[in-house]
């Protein structure tokens, strides 16, 4: 059927500059560029272009420009181009619209409406270049009270401590499974996490056997509804186990790795036959209540000999704070809360763009709820979903998070351009694909270097901002909303965030 949808992008090639090296043709796995031997020049098919910009970056002559197609339908405030085209696409295929990455809708980004404090005169700021700044964070349950015995100079903590994760900087890599992302991308995340003293999350796709020895020490492994790749060794090599209940990009629905992406290595790691769909059902079928969740949490604690913290990841949805309170009471050591702009490899567009609540509001209401109930110490909060910079991270911590998960930001560091075509499995950047030709493009050494650089850059910036506020340990900032002020927000928004308006 002929498609009535405009090409999304327009490719402009500067014929003067183009040296006909055919580099663009080889770079594009979508077949956008082709060489015409008769005319000895390259031609492009706009319809195939996903706007990933790979050819633009790798054209040695800088002869290519890819920009959004300027074609337009008659302007109509109700029928935007996106709505018209989605509708046409569905009329042509009869299918559910799929998309990748986090929501790109213009919901208010509260980070951009929150301002940070700084010290002036009465309270000196600290120079992080000269003075030690503590970013180390412990994730997990903390005791109600510490009992200390002192005999002479010997000081001993008598209270039994719960297992905690130690992170050198409050930035962890979010759950991205091997299968959704390529082996090289997965390994890059693992390498960078180990190098930077933080953790990567395996997602629900398992941890390849050969990586368990080297990377287990910086892994958080996930147990999701599909229960892929789980055995006792998997649970025990990791430093923490996360039960995935929900995901910010698609709250309430499960995952579905299409059979095309289940290659031999993915099948082995997930422990399923090659080429079958890897279906994660929407619910965990052994969890129908908080009681059942408690059973699973305890089962995992049993399976790991009570040596590892157990995290529960839920999507931020209406009234989730009450649910989270139940989760804490069910025994979770860490709650990961994934907000509206959380990313994904594939999600129905309707769900990604319409379900959930923004991360900022979620962190604040969750932290407040747990404090009110007096159980904040029983669980750490890891916030996820749409962290774009170090200032977002520090604001999240001031709103009450212990640490953050970064997903899209990590992918962007590796080369992702958020072209939102992850689900096709033809990622030209070698990130979200199982095609060996494409995944080979992502060099583990170089990509992990980029990731480590990102973590160290953000950590430096966080230290700078902390110093500016006159704080020398991140601990002291957690939940300290006095350091935040809102601009351009309604009163209810300020109330939910628990911050004052700027100038107050």
């Amino acid at each position, binding site marked *: 059927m002929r498609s009535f949808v405009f090409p999304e992008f327009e490719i402009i090639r500067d014929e003067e500059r183009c040296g006909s090296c055919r580099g663009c043709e080889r770079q594009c796995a979508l077949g956008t560029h082709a060489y015409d031997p008769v005319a000895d020049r390259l031609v492009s098919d706009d319809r195939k272009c996903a706007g990933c910009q790979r050819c633009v970056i790798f054209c040695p002559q800088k002869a290519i420009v890819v920009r959004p197609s300027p074609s337009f339908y008659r302007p109509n405030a109700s029928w935007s181009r996106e709505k018209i085209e989605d509708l046409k696409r569905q009329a*042509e295929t009869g299918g559910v619209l*799929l998309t990748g990455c986090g929501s790109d809708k213009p919901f208010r980004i509260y980070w951009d409406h929150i301002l940070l404090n700084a010290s002036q005169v009465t309270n000196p700021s600290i120079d992080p270049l000269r003075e030690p700044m503590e970013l180390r964070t412990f994730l997990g349950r903390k005791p109600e009270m510490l009992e200390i015995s002192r005999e002479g100079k010997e000081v001993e903590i008598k209270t039994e401590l719960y297992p905690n994760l130690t992170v050198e900087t409050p930035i962890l890599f979010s759950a991205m499974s091997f299968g959704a992302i390529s082996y090289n991308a997965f390994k890059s995340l693992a390498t960078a996490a180990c190098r930077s003293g933080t953790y990567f999350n395996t997602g629900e796709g398992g941890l390849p056997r050969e990586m368990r020895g080297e990377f287990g020490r910086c892994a958080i492994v996930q*147990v999701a509804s599909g*229960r892929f790749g789980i055995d006792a060794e998997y649970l025990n090599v990791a430093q923490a186990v996360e039960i995935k209940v929900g995901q910010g990009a698609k709250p309430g629905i499960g995952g579905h790795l299409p059979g095309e992406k289940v290659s031999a290595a993915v099948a082995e790691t997930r422990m399923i036959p090659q080429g079958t769909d890897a279906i994660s059902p929407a619910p965990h079928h052994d969890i129908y209540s908080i009681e059942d969740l408690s059973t699973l949490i305890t*089962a995992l604690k*049993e399976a790991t000999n009570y040596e590892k913290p157990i995290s529960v990841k839920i999507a931020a949805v209406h009234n989730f704070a009450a649910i989270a309170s139940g989760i804490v009471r069910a025994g979770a050591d860490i709650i990961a809360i994934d907000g509206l702009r959380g990313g994904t490899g594939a999600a129905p567009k309707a769900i990604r763009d319409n379900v959930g609540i923004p991360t900022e509001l979620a962190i604040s209401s969750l932290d407040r709820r747990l404090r009110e109930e007096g159980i904040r110490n029983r669980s750490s909060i890891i916030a996820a979903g749409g962290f774009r910079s170090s200032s977002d991270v520090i604001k999240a911590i001031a709103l009450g998070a212990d640490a953050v998960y970064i997903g899209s930001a990590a992918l962007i560091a590796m080369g992702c351009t958020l072209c939102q075509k992850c*689900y096709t499995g033809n990622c030209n950047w070698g990130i979200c694909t199982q095609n060996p030709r494409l995944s080979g493009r992502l060099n583990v050494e170089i990509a992990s270097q980029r990731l480590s650089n990102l973590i160290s850059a953000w950590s430096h910036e966080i230290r700078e901002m902390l110093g500016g506020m006159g704080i020398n340990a991140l601990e002291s900032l957690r939940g300290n909303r006095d350091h935040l002020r809102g601009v351009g927000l309604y009163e209810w928004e300020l109330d939910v965030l628990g911050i004052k308006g700027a100038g107050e």
Partner: protein
Amino acid sequence: MMTKAAVSKVRPGSAPKAGSSAGAVAVSIDASGLETRELNDRLRELLLSGAKRVEISHVCGQRYIGTRLYTPERHLMEIDIRGTAGNDLAAFLSGHKITVEGNAQDGVGNTMDSGEVVVRGRAGDVLGFSMRGGEIYVRDGCGYRAALHMKDCEGKRPVLVVGGGAQDFLGEYMAGGVVIILDRDGESHESSFMGTGMHGGVIYLRGTARVDQVGAQVEISPADEADRELIEEYVSRYLDRFPEVDMTKDEIMASPFVRLTPRSKRPYSGLYAY
């Protein structure tokens, strides 16, 4: 009464498989009054101290038995449970052999990786959930959602044999493995929604199944010769484990079997617009 008779027939090391420790001296634990965690602490201590056989008496609902028995060195142990095992018996089990002289509750063999579970009685709901290896034999029936999302991979195929009947949602989302429902009492299968979302593996039912009992993704066909050979093998293993069962292999095999298989490995491949 049945349970009592069964207990008297237990012979140490009667299992044909994983029986390297046959004849080893069994260590006894009296579980009366023990909390779940205390019981499992004891089991782990025994495992680490090299015990090969453990008998636990007076079990009454203690959960997660067998779950905390993974060691990187893969110590293995045989556990005999007298009483009623609690939820998540043998969850994440890796390689051990557990026999329950009594009933088991929900979640037996949850995400079990390898090993063997024998229940001389009835099992509860979500039996063998997400199981990916090893074998479970249940003498009598089981509850709802048995074999939910069971899966297999190269060289590893979980097997679930249930002597009685199964309730609704048997083999939901099933992605691999073998389920054999022997329906010994001849109640016939009145359960519905069998194999909803199934995309791998195979379910064998003794007797017949109607189209309205299975999910849309499932195909019902009579078991052929190869199927019957497989079933026969597991029936004889089942009978080895439950000598008290008052049926012979020939009696069980005399009735027809049906096979439930998924129509496609990719049930949802046409669902999306790209």
